[in-house]
């Protein structure tokens, strides 16, 4: 799809400016009903389309010429409002592009807008949007959630009838959850694969930029461009990404705990059906266990992520950019507290409080440091399984998309527990992806696959196998 589209753009069969205009109109009308965009950057997208058309004429167009891209609102896009879905950053138009966006722009992809997310990525359902923002709705049933935090990315990928790739981001499951609930492919590469420079940080040891698409073969051409070392991010990987794999028979581990208690029966049934098909094709599928991850993963994730978030968000203080009040006559503590309390939403306050507590003198060793040590045990547990298996599989989410009203009734802890299946690969920084495994009365069910660090090629190979089964 993607390659054919670019070919048509380059040959002139698709008139790019007209095409982009049509896409923008469609997005505007989609947004009225489903609230997938925080910003549609019409002016900038049309200017970019004209520039790319000129480059095509002089045969200088890049590898992704004319590809439509949407960007999760926590990535900076030059001159386009970038709020991370929060009110405190309302009006902030960065002076620079995030590295991933800079690389896409260099290859002439067209950026059409910023997609909805839970404020700063703090959520699993995209219901924790910032004050004054709309909750995005599931295209299959508008009373239901898209999943989060990259809900807008998944929603627009699901409904777009034009060739499009969404740039999303995951900290603890923010690509997988919405991809699962909206029935699209969500791909999260190894930690450090894509530079985090220009990403509005949630938790720097966990944040990973990835993509969402409708088709598996559309992942690699974009991932190839956005990956790679960047001197602006010291944690970006120096190893080159390998997107090809031709392992004869991938060995598959089925995570036993993921099909146990608390999993909706239809979700379990759908995953078992896929396993049966894989076995029929001759793949070895064996039950494996991740006891430490399933027992301690959620608290470990929340203690580390909120600790990091509470320091990362300290830069939002009503000075230099974002929302501000009049600082005259106020002490700094009084002023910062006033601005932050007024513009952070409920969940942002809760996570900042939790992280501040976990790092506080007297509690730090028992909470934050302890969690970083358990993280080591979780990494070891996964590594051991990858000595024997190529891919580990599980459902992505324990349920299908719940109703917005149901999520609002959940306590914060019940909410956090919904990440039980996705925190593992996020804590270990291992590449993982979601692909549709069927549905429950039209509501998509996702299958999640995880491979070892740097094994994006194997993950793509596996996704192609699953896509081929359907």
């Amino acid at each position, binding site marked *: 799809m993607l390659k054919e589209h670019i070919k048509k753009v380059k040959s002139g069969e698709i008139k790019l400016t007209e095409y982009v205009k049509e896409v923008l109109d469609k997005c505007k009308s989609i947004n009225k009903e489903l609230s997938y965009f925080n910003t549609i950057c019409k002016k900038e997208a049309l200017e970019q389309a004209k520039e790319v058309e000129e480059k095509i004429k002089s045969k200088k167009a890049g590898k992704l010429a004319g590809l439509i891209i949407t960007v999760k609102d926590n990535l900076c896009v030059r001159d386009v409002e970038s709020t991370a879905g929060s009110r405190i950053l309302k009006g*902030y*138009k960065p*002076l*620079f592009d995030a590295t991933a966006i800079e690389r896409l722009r260099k290859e002439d992809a067209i950026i059409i807008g910023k997609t909805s997310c839970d404020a700063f990525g703090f959520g699993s359902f995209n219901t924790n949007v910032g004050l004054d923002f709309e909750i995005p709705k599931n295209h299959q049933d508008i009373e239901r959630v898209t999943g989060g935090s990259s809900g807008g990315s998944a929603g627009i990928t699901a409904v777009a009838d034009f060739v499009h790739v969404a740039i999303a981001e995951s900290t603890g499951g923010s690509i997988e959850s919405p991809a699962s609930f909206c029935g699209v492919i969500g791909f999260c590469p*190894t*930690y*450090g694969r894509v530079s985090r420079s220009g990403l509005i940080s949630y938790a720097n*040891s966990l944040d990973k930029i990835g993509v969402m698409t409708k088709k598996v073969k559309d992942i690699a051409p974009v991932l190839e461009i956005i990956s790679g070392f960047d*001197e602006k991010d*010291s*944690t970006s*990987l*120096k190893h080159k990404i390998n997107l090809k794999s031709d392992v004869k028979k991938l060995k598959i581990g089925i995570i036993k705990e993921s099909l146990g208690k608390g999993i909706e029966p239809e979700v379990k049934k759908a995953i078992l059906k896929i396993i049966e098909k894989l076995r029929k094709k001759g793949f070895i599928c064996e039950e494996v266990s991740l006891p430490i991850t399933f*027992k*301690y993963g959620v*608290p470990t994730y*929340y*203690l580390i992520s909120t600790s990091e978030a509470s320091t990362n968000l300290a830069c939002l*203080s009503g*000075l*230099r*950019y974002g929302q*501000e009040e009049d*600082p*005259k006559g*106020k*002490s*700094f*503590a009084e*002023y*910062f*507290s*006033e601005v*932050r*309390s007024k513009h*952070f939403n409920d969940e942002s*306050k*809760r996570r*900042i*409080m*939790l992280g*501040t*507590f976990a790092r*506080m003198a007297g509690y730090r060793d028992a909470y934050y*440091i*302890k969690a*970083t*040590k*358990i*993280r*080591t*045990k979780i*990494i070891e547990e996964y590594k051991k399984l990858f000595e024997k298996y190529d891919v580990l599989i599980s459902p992505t989410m324990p349920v299908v998309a719940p109703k917005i009203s149901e999520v609002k009734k959940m*306590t*914060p*802890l019940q909410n*956090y527990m919904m990440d039980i299946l996705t925190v593992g690969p996020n804590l*270990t*920084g291992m590449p993982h992806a979601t692909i549709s495994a069927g549905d429950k009365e039209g509501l998509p069910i996702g299958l999640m696959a995880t491979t070892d*660090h740097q094994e994006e090629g194997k993950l793509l190979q596996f996704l192609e196998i699953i896509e081929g089964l359907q």
Partner: protein
Amino acid sequence: MKIDKELIEKVSKLAKLKLDESEKEKYSKDFKEILGAFAILDKMDVKSVKSSFRPIEEKDILRDDKVRESITQKEALKFTKHQEKGFFVGPKTIE
């Protein structure tokens, strides 16, 4: 561990968040529920385990100390109303 209003007030002061009474009550209740469940971590003995502050450790990650272009003073001041003679105006830091 005792989770009460006093603890919530201490945390909110450090976090630079001004909470009203209903928020203090709400977060106190949430803390009790969340930290109560997270107490499961006590069961794991990790005394001899090293911390993973990142999932993958990279070595030699310092970049060369080279002078390069940065944003201008005018650009840096673009987003704030509170500026004077090319500087940001902020609240008082010394009483």
